[in-house]
């Protein structure tokens, strides 16, 4: 059995008292390539934030492999494009895990930045201001930063939004390259056809995990139907989630218990 990059132990993440990811169990195998799919509001981005530590679990835990280096590309970047920086400055931020606050950027570091820019097809863009880039170019620059970060676990939250087909193809090629290098990659995506073609494993979320495992099995018609039934809206007076003796959390939080839309917690060990 191969090593787990991530283990979710009855993980509940959310906002206020409302869970957005509810009682997630399972492991993300080291070197696996997983798509995270689900409707809007199903908890995909929340899960990413929970893994990276930007959101504290309401209950349960995310256990990370010791010493794992994470690169995270959020969906709603807080990147300030009006900031007077060049493409090379943005990509060089990826050197932080290696050089930290005060370490000098060596010739080798600069070479790795150039190589990353070349890999995403942005050679010649080094000195361009961020405010002059198109959406796709900026996304490629951010991928270059992930390349420079040289991380073990790469989390990409909807990286293909508003990106043209050719660029999506280029970015998928990069993701496959990371997969080939035995890095663990999790990608939030909406295009199911793209997921079927390129991602061996899929986690289907509808606040609860609906299914998780081989992509073709996870994205079965039956699972998709179950996922579609989930209610996106919070219910202010939903009953408190009580510990049910199955190792669930002991912190009470609101969630709706409608039998007809309560997807079973099918967990496929991956």
């Amino acid at each position, binding site marked *: 059995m191969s090593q787990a990059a991530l283990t979710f132990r009855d993980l509940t993440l959310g906002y206020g008292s409302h869970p957005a990811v509810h009682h997630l169990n399972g492991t993300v195998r080291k070197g696996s390539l997983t798509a995270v799919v689900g409707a809007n509001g199903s908890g995909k981005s929340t899960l990413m934030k929970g893994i990276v530590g*930007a959101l504290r679990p309401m209950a349960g835990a995310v256990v990370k492999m010791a010493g794992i280096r994470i690169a995270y590309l959020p969906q709603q970047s*807080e990147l*300030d494009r009006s900031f*007077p*920086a060049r493409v090379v400055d943005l990509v060089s931020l990826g050197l932080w895990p290696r050089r930290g*606050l*005060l370490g000098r950027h060596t010739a080798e570091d600069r070479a790795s930045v150039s190589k990353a820019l070349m890999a995403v097809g942005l050679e010649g863009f080094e000195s361009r201001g961020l405010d002059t880039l198109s959406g796709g170019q900026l996304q490629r620059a951010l991928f270059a930063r992930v390349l420079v970060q040289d991380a073990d676990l790469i989390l990409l939250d909807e990286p293909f939004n508003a990106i043209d087909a050719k660029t999506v193809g280029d970015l998928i090629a990069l993701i496959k390259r990371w997969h080939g290098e035995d890095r663990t990659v999790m990608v939030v995506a909406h295009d199911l056809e793209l997921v079927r073609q390129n991602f061996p494993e899929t986690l289907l979320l509808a606040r609860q995990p609906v299914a998780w495992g081989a992509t073709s099995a996870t994205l079965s018609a039956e699972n998709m139907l179950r996922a579609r039934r989930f209610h996106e809206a919070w219910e202010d007076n939903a009953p408190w989630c009580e510990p049910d003796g199955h190792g669930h959390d002991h912190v009470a939080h609101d969630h709706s218990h409608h039998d007809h839309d309560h997807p079973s917690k099918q967990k496929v060990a991956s």
Partner: protein
Amino acid sequence: MSSLYSFFIAPFADFAFMQRALAGSLMLSLGACPVGVFLMLRRMSLSGDAMAHAILPGAAAGFLLYGLEILPMTVGGLIAGVIVALGAGAVSRFSIQREDASMAAFYLISLAIGVLMVSIRGSSVDLMHVLFGTVLALNNEALLLIGGIAVVTLVALFLFWRALVAECLDPLFLRSVSRLGSPVHFIFLGLVVLNLVGGFQALGTLLSVGLMILPAAAARFWSQRVGPMCVLAVAIGFISCVAGLLLSYHAALPSGPAIILSAGAAYIASILVGPRGVLRSRLVHHRHRTA
């Protein structure tokens, strides 16, 4: 030639108070202008103004208790500024409220306390000292303080440069790779307070923020990179100080407003003629390339 000398050099060569004023204001520019650049790039220019108001009650308390003594006024201003900066910063980091609102709330409370104190204990003449400062009356202690603040500021900027840039450019990224995000924000707010406190001896609490923001805002029209922008802001600050002091000397004007108005002139000139200013980008007819 001799008239040039008597206009530009003689005032500084002949009068010790002008030399002190020059030394004080140049050292002030060294720290305050780069801090101003980051303040502007973080869209916190008006927060600088709010912070300046927040310092007032602390400085006024020191002044009312000990008279025009530099130490109590500085310490008072520092305490008031740090409380407001930490309070506003903490509320914005740990609650849903953004910093513009929390900063406004805290500085208004601070300002009200200040006005209350002055109305109980002081006179409006006293207040004028605190509000408008006296660059022409900087003593050794004040110069030492301003010099110390400049050194602390430059060292802190050097050490935390990479984190400051990352925190401005992509705060979420910094948070994903380092725990420095929040500390560096508070260190930065500390530098803002420190430089405003350093400035109020020379320029008064109300105008000290001027030397921070105006040269930085002017430099934005000339450069597209943070480092050069900081250097340029310091240069514009230097020129403004020299020009302001000369203007004040020759036209018998109050020195603080003269320095800030000189910086204001540099700002307006930059809007007009800077490479990224209005005239170049709007009025000059641009040819375009094929690709």
